[in-house]
């Protein structure tokens, strides 16, 4: 019974990412993190917004296992809840970025010509700009907050997915099976939807997953500059921003959220690598 389930699952390519020790640990961590993010409002031991100024900057101990911040709020609860903010912002941003980037990249790759040159000039230029600068300028224009942070991250990584998708489409367009399908009398829509995009999807999705890690770092950096989540909403970056002044007084306020960011991004990268291996698309994930 179990072996039958196993066989069925292992036939599903992405699941093979779990076939190594690294894949199990990293993937397990990410699943746990997703659960924490989803159930955060119900599992945090303390109210993430409740202030207790009498117990501010308390060192880690019991019952505050990661200490308290300058308002006496429980750092552990805020780190748990921060997973919800960080993951949802980053994942939403990357989802937007991937969708728009695929559309732009596919259009550029399929139609070619002047349109492609215009799109790619802009894309190459923004790609060579530091993501933090793009995001900072964007947030400066539309104002701070989680929504604008999400869009800022989406814009910062748009170039990456446009480039990648275009590269995939250009490569696929020259494949014989595309010509063969046209020769059968297929419409352009059939070619793009049934052959080009499905074949370009796997590498773009995997790179997208890896980019969720970069998105978390960018969200943290924007939060550090005070432009991300608005108080009292906890996000890993925003926690470190209020913690800057506390670097010396209560280092736990910045160390724990930082560890959470680093651990998450490392897990995302390790699992992403396993996924690349499982899907056998190593050659295609580079743009």
């Amino acid at each position, binding site marked *: 019974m179990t072996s039958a389930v196993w066989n069925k699952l292992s036939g599903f390519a992405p699941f093979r990412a779990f076939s190594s020790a690294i894949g199990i640990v990293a993937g397990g961590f990410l699943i746990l993190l997703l659960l924490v993010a989803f159930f955060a409002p119900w599992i945090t031991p303390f109210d993430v917004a409740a202030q207790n100024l009498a117990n501010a900057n308390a060192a880690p101990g019991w019952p505050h296992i990661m200490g308290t911040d300058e308002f006496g709020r429980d750092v552990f609860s805020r780190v748990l809840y921060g997973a919800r903010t960080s993951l949802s912002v980053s994942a939403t941003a990357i989802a937007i970025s991937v969708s728009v980037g695929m559309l732009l990249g596919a259009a550029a790759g399929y139609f070619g010509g002047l349109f492609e040159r215009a799109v790619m000039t802009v894309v190459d230029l923004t790609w*060579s700009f530091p993501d933090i600068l793009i995001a900072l300028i964007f947030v400066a*224009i539309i104002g701070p907050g989680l929504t604008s942070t999400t869009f800022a991250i989406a814009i910062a990584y748009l170039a990456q997915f446009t480039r990648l998708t275009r590269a995939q489409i250009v490569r696929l367009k020259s494949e014989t099976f595309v010509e063969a399908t046209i020769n059968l009398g297929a419409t352009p829509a059939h070619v793009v939807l049934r052959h080009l995009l499905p074949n370009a999807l796997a590498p773009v999705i995997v790179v997208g997953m890896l980019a969720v890690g970069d998105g978390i770092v960018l969200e943290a950096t924007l939060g550090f*500059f005070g432009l991300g989540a608005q108080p009292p909403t906890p996000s890993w970056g925003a926690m470190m921003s209020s913690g800057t002044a506390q670097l010396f007084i209560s280092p736990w306020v910045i*160390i724990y959220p*930082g560890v959470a*960011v680093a651990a998450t991004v490392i897990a995302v990268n390790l699992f992403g690598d396993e996924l690349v291996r499982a899907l056998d698309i190593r050659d295609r994930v580079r743009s």
Partner: protein
Amino acid sequence: MILKYSIQRLLMIIPVSLAISVVIFLIVHLLPGDPIDNLIRVGSSPEDRIALTAKYGLDQSLFEQYFLWISQIMTGDFGQAIVLRRPVADLIAQNLPYSLQLGGLAFLFSSIVGLILGIVAWASQKTWGEQFVKGFILLGSTVPGFWLALLMILFFAVNLGWFPVSGARDWTALVLPVLTIGFGGIALVARVTRVALLEVGREDFITLLHAKGLSRPTILFRHLIPHALLPVVTILALRIGWILGGAVTVEFVFGRPGLGSLLIRALGQRDYPVVQGSLLMLALAVMIGTLIGDIAQAAMDPRIREATK
């Protein structure tokens, strides 16, 4: 052939820069806020404000303002900062050396250490050495820069007292920022080097050299590394924008001057000419970096040289 190719690419910069200048100008003027707010003082009257707005030409239409700006740029004049009250060119000239110093050292540091680590990882395939380098690469490319900077300050500057906490007074103040930026760069260079070596190592001519009985170090230094350098040089040239502008967070944490700090500060004060000028400089640096990358690629790879004939 390379010369002709380079000139062609160099000429392309002009129309692209012009297009970029429009984008930059629009972005800057889309920003909410007004630089005049940073000039008026408690006690001045609303009329003073109107006079100031007129003084800096901010009452003119956007089209006129753009035209004025771009025609100044054509004559090499970046304009006068509104809040910072200096010629923009002076401000850039004052900050650029700090960026170049930090960026250049971080660049050198990460190239050298990254190359060595990449070679170590390649030479020690399937041993702990490779695992160590891979772990280092993973850490370097994932840890947020500002967090690393804070930890470094806490450890090396506060606890050990080896380096100053902030500023740019002498070379000791460069150590921690260079390490912070370099850490990410090392990871990038090491990863690219390792992959490039693995790929070049698989090529037939390397197998042939092995078959000819050349020693491993000879093959490594005479043949493998020169070939593997191409992607490393390319990736570094393409990242010039990152080196100059991406140091923003590190400059912020260490309180260092630089192009990134200037930009962030001017952005905060809505000092339009400064934001425009420094963004244009960054865009130019990015384009030149891309150009160098492309030319290096063309010069080193005969296949690309051929294609441009």
